[in-house]
């Protein structure tokens, strides 16, 4: 029958105990650390027993050494497990050891040795008797840690040390009485009781400094109300290695990921210093608040003495309301949040949080006493390197090692160790050869140098074993990136990849959580697909450091307990969420004209293709349908093809659509490119896709075909020459006449050699008795009736296909060959498979046209003026400067696209050519500005003035009121007339028409050309308005101010250099510095919001601008057809920060500006 004591009796028993005298602590406690030395002075014990594993006993003199600067850490490594004991000035254990060492009193580490290998038992069997919950509720504490703060830390100020001891012991007793203890705790207590019993024989006055939880069990073996379960006591194989190392405040903070830390160490250090000096803790709160304000001001946000004073008042008020003598850490944090963050999670909230972190974590670095024996990481690594037969200290470096980590066990261990060393920052081995992650083998050049020694010493701060040092270094790197706002999705994916390569499953699981969290929230489609690929590689066991097979896990020492592999569920969850996020990101693809996006779309669809029941497939089909209907030309094509791949649309339906696009004019080429990029090689296997198109092409008359030829050729150009050859063969099966057999464009001699080599190979394989695959059976011939040629046409169908695919020009009739030659001038040999064959059957046999003029004339003669301009324009787009110069400034049709193309050339032109170009651009710009201004100016004018009104406002128009009511005036007997006011007239709020400032912040990174043209023209139009000052800031990763040139769009456009990355946050910071009157400023950001810089900083900057009163507008990039194209996740974050994002045409933008400044 367990004995149940009343709290008061239990406390009396604990505090009254003298054999041993008990001091129950929490391992980090400023109150206990301050109370312990005076109590020890009073007691003057003969020996002090400290709750540390017996293994660390040899280190205790070095821990208590007078020259040690805390924080330091004791570590004990046994097998795969590491026990870690960080010791700070506010650790009671450190105070006890110091006290003992200084006075020459023996001090013993009397806890169970680390190697005893006690099973931890079930984490929590839930058998709480409700005591703890009741205590939590009655003290208003959310968790046990806060309860300790309430009961022990907060009342410690000015209290007698004995009272602190009593409070701590009572807390421990309550925690222990709440429920049964775990087997490991019971075994430890048994051991400690035995050690106490042994000490009784040698010493008279014994003091024990233990966790307050254990106190009761040390004086009374029956204090535990539960029958004892034997712990599994199989000692761990291998020696226990202990070490003592310096430590840092950042590591001590429990958020750093290091074990046995505490939140906000600097707070505890300050509180300890105040308590030990007998000063009020109240002063600490004041100090901390003043410093937080200083850090906030350093980040250029207002926070002054009034804020600090209010926060302190609030903290004290809360303390008083909660019955505390002085505010504790919790009260200070609450006060800061209320009085300083202004309810902002972003923007100011981030600044305040960072200031708090800097003040409360601190930057203390510990130091060991001189002469402390060497321990920790360096000896560990030396042993490891020797075991792996890698060069150690003083050894001559070997040849570069080629490791095959997926096949050889030794190589896998070496591979992981080299990765871990690199991650820990130890300079030891360079990776030579290619860095491709997909490669099966990797070459390394390991070498033990002086740099290795030096970097090892630095890395040893992070832990006594290599995995721990690598873990610490990787965590520190993530923290540093986060502090500099550089932890973007790409960096996170790279980080997880590195953790996986290092075989650190804990980190990988954390990283996977990040992939599910921040990455999903911020990344664009491309990054999401990259993250998906990484997850799939890990899941398939292709990352040597992170195998899926538990037997292949890399261990540090022989016999060590293997690490767990990464839980399959974590991978599956991450994959599901990445998939869902990728589907979500499709919305932003609508206006993209980049074929890379089509490829990403296709890759994503493939993931779903084989598994129709995957989560999110419905959403994908829904998104694809929208993209197929409303997307830009390539996206429409790509989405249509993806729908066929998903099986939501039959191939025949897409085929009919493909055929109908022949009449779609400008978008034909783009849509074809989309379909072909997505389906590419599969097209040959789907005759139903191509046949409708083939029928239409045969049916067109010559003129109509030639008008569409450049677009068709442009569309099919995305296929490689070899693919086009095969396609030609496949199509010709269905046309009149002999099918066109795909010929090999290879020298016959070479062909013979190749065939001989093949046969030799076959013979060799057969000689070894291996099976040789039989040739695949010939594909069944489709018995369709061939598509007839229209006899009225000169151009036969097969020749038309030769022309539009740009293959087999030699087989064309001479007259038709001219068309092919004129187009080949533009498209050349093509890209990809088959493009570099000698003597190809494609274009390029004849000499090129001598000049662009000749070419242009030929084009004009063959196809007509419209096609001539189109083809030359395309040539200009492909970088042919001469083609642009051949365009006639006077007759050219002004369009934004043409302007873009021409502008893209300006970098590579001579001054004379530039002059011609300038005339062309000038004309186009003038025409466009005129056209736009005619539409836009009315939207901007028509400002209103104050008007009289009968609606009640706060301004009475006295003059008009008197006038309106004069007829009701009555003379009064006592003199002045009385006016009975029947009608009141008020003034409406006048709208001021003084100057506004419009800042156009324009992204000039790649693929933003059309938007720059629009922005430049808007700037010119706006700057022509009275009372509007226009700033034009162009940015990629740098910002330039082009405000001087806003009235001259030509100069502006010639000044802007397209290209580079995107750092919107930096541009906004620059803009913020230039704003003088925030409430009268409009800040318009034109971008695709594919932020390359840190997203957190971008959002914070946007928030800061909005808070200051600037009217923000994000203009999502539009392509020429005014379809938006932008990063969905980042835009949503910005909208949440108060910056509306819209895709507006120039006219709509003008209306918005008009509404704002009216």
């Amino acid at each position, binding site marked *: 029958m367990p004995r149940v004591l009343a709290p008061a009796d239990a406390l009396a028993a604990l505090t009254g105990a003298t054999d041993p005298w008990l001091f129950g602590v929490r391992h980090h406690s400023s109150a206990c650390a301050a109370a312990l030395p005076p109590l020890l002075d009073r007691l003057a014990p003969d020996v002090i027993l400290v709750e540390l594993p017996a293994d660390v006993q040899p280190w205790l003199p070095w821990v208590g050494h007078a020259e040690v600067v805390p924080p330091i850490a004791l570590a004990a490594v046994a097998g795969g497990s590491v026990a870690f004991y960080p010791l700070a000035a506010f650790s009671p254990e450190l105070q006890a050891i110091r006290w003992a060492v200084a006075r020459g009193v023996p001090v013993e580490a009397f806890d169970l040795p680390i190697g005893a290998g006690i099973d931890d038992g079930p984490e929590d069997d839930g058998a709480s008797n409700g005591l703890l919950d009741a205590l939590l509720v009655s003290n208003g504490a959310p968790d046990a840690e806060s309860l300790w703060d309430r009961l022990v830390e907060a009342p410690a100020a000015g209290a007698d040390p004995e009272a602190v001891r009593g409070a701590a012991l009572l807390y421990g007793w309550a925690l222990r009485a709440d429920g049964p203890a775990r087997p490991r705790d019971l075994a430890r207590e048994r051991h400690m009781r035995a050690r106490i019993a042994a000490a009784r024989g040698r010493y008279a006055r014994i003091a024990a400094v233990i966790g307050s939880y254990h106190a009761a069990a040390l004086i009374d073996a029956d204090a535990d109300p539960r029958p004892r379960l034997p712990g599994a006591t199989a000692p761990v194989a291998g020696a226990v290695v202990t070490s003592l190392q310096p430590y840092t405040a950042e590591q001590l903070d429990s958020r750093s990921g290091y074990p046995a830390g505490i939140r906000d160490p600097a707070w505890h250090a300050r509180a300890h210093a105040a308590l030990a000096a007998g000063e009020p803790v109240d002063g600490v709160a004041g100090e901390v608040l003043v410093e937080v304000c200083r850090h906030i001001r350093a980040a250029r946000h207002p926070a002054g003495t009034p804020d600090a004073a209010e926060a302190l008042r*609030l903290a004290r008020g809360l303390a008083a309301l909660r019955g505390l003598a002085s505010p504790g850490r919790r009260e200070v944090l609450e006060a800061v949040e209320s009085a300083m963050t202004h309810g*902002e999670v972003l923007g100011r909230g981030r600044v305040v949080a960072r200031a708090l972190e800097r003040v409360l974590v601190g930057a203390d670095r510990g130091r060991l006493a001189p002469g402390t024996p060497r321990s920790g990481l360096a000896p560990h690594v030396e042993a490891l390197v020797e075991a792996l037969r890698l060069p150690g200290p003083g050894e001559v470096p070997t040849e570069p090692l080629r490791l095959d980590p997926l096949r050889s066990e030794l190589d896998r261990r070496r591979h992981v160790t080299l990765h871990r060393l690199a991650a820990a920052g130890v300079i030891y081995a360079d990776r030579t050869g290619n860095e491709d992650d997909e490669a099966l083998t990797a070459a390394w050049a390991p070498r033990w140098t002086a740099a290795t020694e030096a970097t090892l010493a630095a890395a040893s701060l992070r832990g006594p074993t290599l995995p721990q040092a690598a873990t610490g270094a990787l965590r520190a790197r993530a923290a540093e990136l986060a502090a500099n706002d550089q932890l973007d999705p790409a960096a996170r994916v790279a980080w997880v990849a590195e953790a996986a390569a290092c075989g650190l499953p804990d980190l990988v699981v954390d990283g996977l959580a990040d992939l599910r969290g921040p990455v999903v929230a911020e990344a664009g489609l491309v990054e999401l697909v990259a993250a998906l690929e990484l997850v799939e590689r890990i899941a398939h066991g292709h990352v040597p450091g992170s195998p899926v097979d538990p037997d292949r896990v890399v261990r540090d020492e022989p016999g060590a307990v293997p690490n767990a592999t990464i839980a399959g569920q974590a991978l599956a969850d991450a994959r599901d969420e990445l998939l869902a*996020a990728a589907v979500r990101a499709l919305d932003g693809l609508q206006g993209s004209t980049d074929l890379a996006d089509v490829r990403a779309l296709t890759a994503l669809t493939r993931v779903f293709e084989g598994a129709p029941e995957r989560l999110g*497939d419905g959403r994908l089909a829904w998104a694809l349908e929208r993209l197929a209907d409303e997307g830009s030309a390539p996206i429409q094509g790509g989405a249509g093809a993806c729908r066929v791949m998903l099986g939501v649309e039959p191939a025949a339906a897409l085929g009919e659509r493909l055929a109908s696009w022949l009449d779609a004019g400008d978008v034909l080429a783009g849509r074809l490119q989309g379909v072909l990029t997505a389906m590419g090689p599969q097209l040959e296997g789907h005759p139903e896709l191509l046949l409708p198109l083939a029928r239409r092409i045969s049916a067109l008359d010559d003129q109509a075909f030639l008008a569409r030829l450049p677009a068709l050729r442009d569309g099919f150009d995305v296929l490689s020459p070899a693919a086009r050859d095969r396609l030609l063969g496949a199509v010709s099966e269905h046309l009149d006449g002999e099918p066109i057999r795909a010929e090999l464009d290879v020298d016959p001699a070479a062909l013979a050699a190749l065939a001989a080599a093949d046969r030799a190979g076959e013979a060799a394989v057969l000689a070894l008795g291996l099976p040789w695959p039989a040739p695949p059976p010939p594909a069944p011939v489709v018995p369709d009736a061939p598509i007839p040629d229209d006899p009225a046409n000169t151009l036969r169908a097969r020749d038309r296909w030769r022309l539009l695919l740009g293959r087999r020009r030699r087989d064309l009739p001479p007259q038709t060959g001219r068309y092919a030659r004129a187009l080949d001038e533009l498209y050349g040999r093509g890209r990809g498979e088959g493009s570099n064959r000698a003597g190809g059957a494609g274009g390029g046999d004849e000499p090129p046209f001598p000049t662009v003029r000749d070419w242009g004339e030929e084009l004009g003669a063959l196809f007509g003026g419209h096609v001539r301009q189109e083809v030359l324009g395309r040539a200009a787009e492909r970088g042919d400067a001469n083609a642009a110069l051949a365009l006639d400034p006077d007759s050219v049709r002004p369009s934004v696209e043409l302007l873009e193309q021409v502008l893209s050339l300006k970098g590579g032109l001579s001054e004379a050519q530039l002059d011609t170009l300038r005339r062309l651009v000038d004309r186009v710009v003038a025409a466009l500005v005129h056209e736009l201004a005619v539409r836009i100016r009315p939207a901007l004018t028509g400002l209103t003035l104050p008007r009289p009104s009968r609606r009640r406002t706060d301004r009475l128009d006295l003059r008009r009121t008197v006038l309106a009511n004069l007829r009701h005036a009555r003379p009064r007997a006592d003199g002045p007339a009385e006016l009975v006011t029947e009608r009141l007239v008020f003034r409406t709020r006048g709208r001021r028409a003084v100057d506004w400032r419009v800042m156009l912040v324009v992204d000039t990174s790649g693929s933003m050309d059309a938007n720059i043209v629009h922005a430049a023209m808007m700037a010119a139009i706006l700057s022509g308005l009275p009372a509007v000052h226009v700033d034009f800031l162009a940015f990629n990763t740098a910002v330039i101010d082009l405000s001087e040139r806003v009235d001259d769009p030509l100069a502006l456009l010639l000044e802007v250099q397209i290209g580079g990355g995107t750092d919107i946050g930096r541009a906004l910071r620059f803009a913020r510095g230039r704003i003088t009157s925030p409430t009268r400023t409009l800040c318009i950001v034109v971008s695709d919001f594919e932020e390359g810089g840190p997203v957190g900083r971008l959002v914070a900057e946007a928030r800061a601008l909005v808070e200051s*009163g600037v009217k923000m507008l994000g203009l999502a990039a539009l392509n020429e057809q005014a379809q938006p194209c932008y990063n969905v996740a980042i835009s949503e974050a910005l909208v949440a920060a108060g910056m509306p994002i819209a895709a507006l045409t120039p006219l709509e933008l003008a209306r918005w500006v008009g509404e704002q400044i009216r």
Partner: protein
Amino acid sequence: MTAVQAPPPEERYADELAALAAWDGGLRPPGWALTPRAVVTFVCGSRGEALGGVVISEKFVGDRALVERCVVTLAGERGLLLVGEPGTAKSMLSELLSAAICGTSRLTVQGTAGTAEEHFRYGWNYALLLAKGPSPEALVPSPVLAAMQQGKLARVEEITRCLPEVQDALVSILSDRRLAVPELGEGGMAFAAQGFNVIATANLRDRGVSEMSAALKRRFNFEVVPPIAELDREVALVRRQAEAAVARVGVPLGVDQQVLQALVVAFRDLRVGRSAEGWAVEKPSTVMSTAEAVGVATSIGLQSTFIGGVEPWRLLPGYLLGVVQKDDPKDRGRLLAYWDGAVKRRAEKDALWKGLLELRAVIEE
């Protein structure tokens, strides 16, 4: 007197207030009707304990520390600004606080875009003004001015809906604690009596709001009122309020606990963008407040009682779509994604969710 729909808390809880005033005789801040401790108890309840003979009911379901901070703020120099998403009981909290601290919650300015400066300062009885010139009799005090003169709490609802110029009228009142009426000449200065302070509420993230100026922000302590953290408490609250709502028309709430729970779970998932199991969920642009959940539960209850024919749970997807899809057509896609993700996964284990999954077509069309 006819029964009012929502009596102010000082009337509804008059007995509790009286009991608390008698129970805690501790030090009160100048001008306060109760001690800070008693105010916190009034708002958060006495956990079943009888104080002065009366058990204080729990009125605000939320963090006690938040209420403590509010109370301490109001005893100081700054105003209290309660911010949070719509439907998080900010206004109720402000009413409770002012009823407990100064005995009235009636000195209220309800902020709209049409709120003028006179609602914060003072207006005139124009007939009297024109007839007799500026005089204290012709002055019409605003609720804020009245609160200053009486030493009570003024409440400003939805402060961010007022235009920024109008909001800024509060800046000098809060910092100088006085209000000048230049028309009245020398004597035209109103000074705040002890006990005066301002409680404002705001949705910082709602549409159609004006930003607050930095000067005004510095005169307030901000408290973010979060949505209810625990599922069980939210389900209980939704049940309680929906029952009260259908009780007004005199019928019981015919929605069982499981359906109610599914409803609240769906609301919470879509609100925080993460499901109860930790899966990512796409957040719609609409606000998924507890108040809306009560509305849906009430509607489902009323429809199944008065119209009938359909089991209550079958109505859930339709109502959910109605809440989610307000003005952004993309929100329908987001709800679909929720069905494709979280609902589909739950359907593997739970019959009710399986049934809901089969109703996916309701959302699709």
